[in-house]
C-alpha cells in the first residue's frame, strides 16, 4: 500500500474572535493549500470536521475559496471529529477515488459549559448530570483513591501546559501560572479546578493530504501518516458516553488504550518509538490517565510520571508541547487537526521554543463524548 502524506498545514489561532466560521475556516484552509504548494482547484474532495456548526458548513466555508463541484462532506464524532475526518481522507486516497484531499476542522462555540442537549438525555439534564467536567472529576477522584495520585500532580500537568503555550501564537491564553495560582483557582468539580480544564472556543485548522508519489513531484516537506485510527468506547469502558450506569463486573479497556494499540500496530511502532505527543487534556487529570493508556508508564503511575518531569518538552516523552487544550481552548471540530499542525511543525523542526530535539515521529490523540477516540501517528520522511 502506497504511503499517504500530509503535504500542507494551516491554522487560524484558537480563541474568541469577532469573525464568522466562514472567515476563520477559509483562512486555515487557504494557509494549508499555500503551505502544500497547491491550488484549491487541485483538490479532489474535502471534509469538514465540526460538531457545533450547522448542516452543510463544509460547503459554506470552502466555497469562499472559489467555485467547485467536488464532494464536500461534514464529519462529526464529538471531540474525535478531526481524527474521523482525517481518516476519511486517508480512505479516499487509498481507494484511488481521490489523490489530493483537504481536511478542515472548524468550530465557533459559545462561552461557558457546552450545550448539554447535544449529548445528554433530557432526564440527565433535568437531574443535573449534564456538566461535562463532573465526569472527568469522578474519574480523577477514583484514580486518587486507587493509586494515590495527588492534587499537586494534577496541577503540575496544568502548570506544564500553560507554560508551554506561552510561545505558541495559536493558543488562547499564552500565560504561565504558578502552582499556587493553579491550586488556588476555583473548584469547578472537585478535585478539578478552573485553571486545570479547557474552555470551548473558536478556531480552525486544516491539512492537505495526498500520496507520497504526488508529494515528491510537488516538493515541499511532506510528513507520512503512519496510522489514523478512530474508535468508540466498548461497553461500559468510559464515563464520557455520558454513562447513566457502568458495569461493576466487566472491566473493558478504555477507548484510548484500545485506539492507541490499534494505531501502534498499524504504524509498526510502540510508545517508546514516538518522540512527541499531543493528547486530549480536557482536564489536567485526563492527561495523567492518558500517559497510562498510551503506554508511556504503567497503570496507576501517571501522577508520578508527570511529577518526575518525563512529559516536559525536555523530558523523555514530551506531551502537549503546544500547551494542550487547557491553554489553547477546545474548538471541538478543529482540535485534532490543531494537534496535527503542531506535530507536523515538530517533525519539520519549525516549532521554535517548543521544539522537541530531533523529533522524527509524533502522536495526536483526542477523546470525548460517545467515548469517541482518535489517534494519529505521523512520521518524518
Amino acid at each position, binding site marked *: 500500500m502506497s504511503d499517504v502524506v500530509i503535504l500542507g498545514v494551516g491554522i487560524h489561532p484558537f480563541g474568541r474572535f469577532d469573525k464568522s466560521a466562514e472567515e476563520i475556516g477559509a483562512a486555515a484552509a487557504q494557509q494549508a493549500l499555500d503551505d502544500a504548494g497547491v491550488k484549491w482547484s487541485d483538490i479532489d474532495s474535502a471534509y469538514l470536521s465540526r460538531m457545533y456548526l450547522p448542516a452543510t458548513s463544509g460547503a459554506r466555508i470552502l466555497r469562499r475559496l472559489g467555485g467547485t463541484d467536488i464532494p464536500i462532506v461534514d464529519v462529526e464524532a464529538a471531540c474525535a471529529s478531526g481524527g474521523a475526518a482525517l481518516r476519511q481522507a486517508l480512505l479516499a486516497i487509498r481507494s484511488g477515488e481521490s489523490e489530493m484531499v483537504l481536511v478542515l476542522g472548524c468550530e465557533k462555540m459559545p462561552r461557558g459549559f457546552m450545550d448539554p442537549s447535544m449529548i445528554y438525555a433530557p432526564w440527565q*439534564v433535568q437531574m*443535573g448530570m449534564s456538566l461535562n467536567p463532573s465526569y472527568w472529576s469522578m474519574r480523577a477522584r477514583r484514580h486518587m483513591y486507587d493509586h494515590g495520585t495527588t492534587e499537586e500532580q494534577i496541577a503540575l500537568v496544568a502548570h506544564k501546559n500553560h507554560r508551554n503555550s506561552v510561545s505558541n501564537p495559536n493558543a488562547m491564553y499564552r500565560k504561565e501560572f504558578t502552582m499556587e495560582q493553579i491550586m488556588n483557582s476555583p473548584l469547578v468539580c472537585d478535585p478539578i479546578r478552573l485553571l486545570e480544564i479547557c474552555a470551548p472556543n473558536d478556531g480552525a485548522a486544516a491539512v492537505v493530504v495526498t500520496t507520497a508519489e504526488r508529494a515528491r513531484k510537488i516538493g515541499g516537506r511532506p510528513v507520512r501518516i503512519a496510522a489514523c485510527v478512530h474508535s468508540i468506547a466498548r*461497553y461500559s469502558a468510559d464515563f464520557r458516553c455520558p454513562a447513566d450506569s457502568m458495569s461493576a463486573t466487566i472491566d473493558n479497556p478504555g477507548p484510548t488504550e484500545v485506539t492507541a494499540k490499534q494505531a501502534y500496530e498499524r504504524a509498526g511502532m510502540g510508545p517508546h518509538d514516538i518522540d512527541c505527543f499531543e493528547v486530549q487534556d480536557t482536564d489536567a487529570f485526563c492527561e495523567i490517565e492518558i500517559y497510562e493508556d498510551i503506554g508511556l508508564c504503567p497503570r496507576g503511575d501517571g501522577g508520578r510520571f508527570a511529577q518526575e518531569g518525563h512529559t516536559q518538552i525536555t523530558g523523555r516523552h514530551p506531551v502537549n508541547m503546544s500547551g494542550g487544550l487547557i491553554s489553547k481552548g477546545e474548538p471541538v471540530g478543529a482540535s485534532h487537526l490543531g494537534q496535527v499542525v503542531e506535530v507536523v511543525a515538530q517533525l519539520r523542526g519549525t516549532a521554535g521554543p517548543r521544539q522537541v530535539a530531533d523529533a522524527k515521529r509524533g502522536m495526536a490523540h483526542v477523546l470525548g463524548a460517545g467515548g469517541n477516540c482518535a489517534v494519529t501517528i505521523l512520521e518524518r520522511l
Partner: protein
Amino acid sequence: MSTAADRPLTPIRKGLISEPIDSPEAFRLLGSKCGTCGELSIGTNAVCLNCGGSDLSTVRLSPEGILWTFTIVRHAPPGDYRGPKPFAPFGLGLIELPDGVRIMAPLEGDIDTFRIGARMRLNLKVLDADSPAPLAAFSFSMIG
C-alpha cells in the same frame, strides 16, 4: 404517590422507576438483566447493551450500595436543570449496587462529608414539586 396538592408524579424517564410510585419506602429503580451474558444496566431496554442479546428481564434494583466515586458540582449545570433555585452546589456520584451495576446519581447531604466507600441509600426525589406536573426522580444519601 402524590404531592401534597394531590398531583400524580410522572417518572422522569419511562422504564427507570418502579410504578405505581406508592411510597418513598417502596420506591425502586428498575434495571434490565440479560439472560445471555448476565449483565445489568439501568432502565428497561429491548437489547442488552453488552452482548446485544434480547433475552432481558426487568428487575427491581437494590436500594442500597457503596459510593464508588463522586464529585461536587459547584456551578449550575447548563440546560434544563430542575434543581433548586438559586443553585446550590451538590454531590454527584457513582453508587455501586450489590446487583453488579454502578448508578450515576445526584447525592443528598453535606457536600463536605462524602467519601468513597460510604454506604448509600436510594431516595425518591421530587422535581418541580410546585408545578402541575411534578417529576419523580432519584438521588442517594449516606446512611448514618
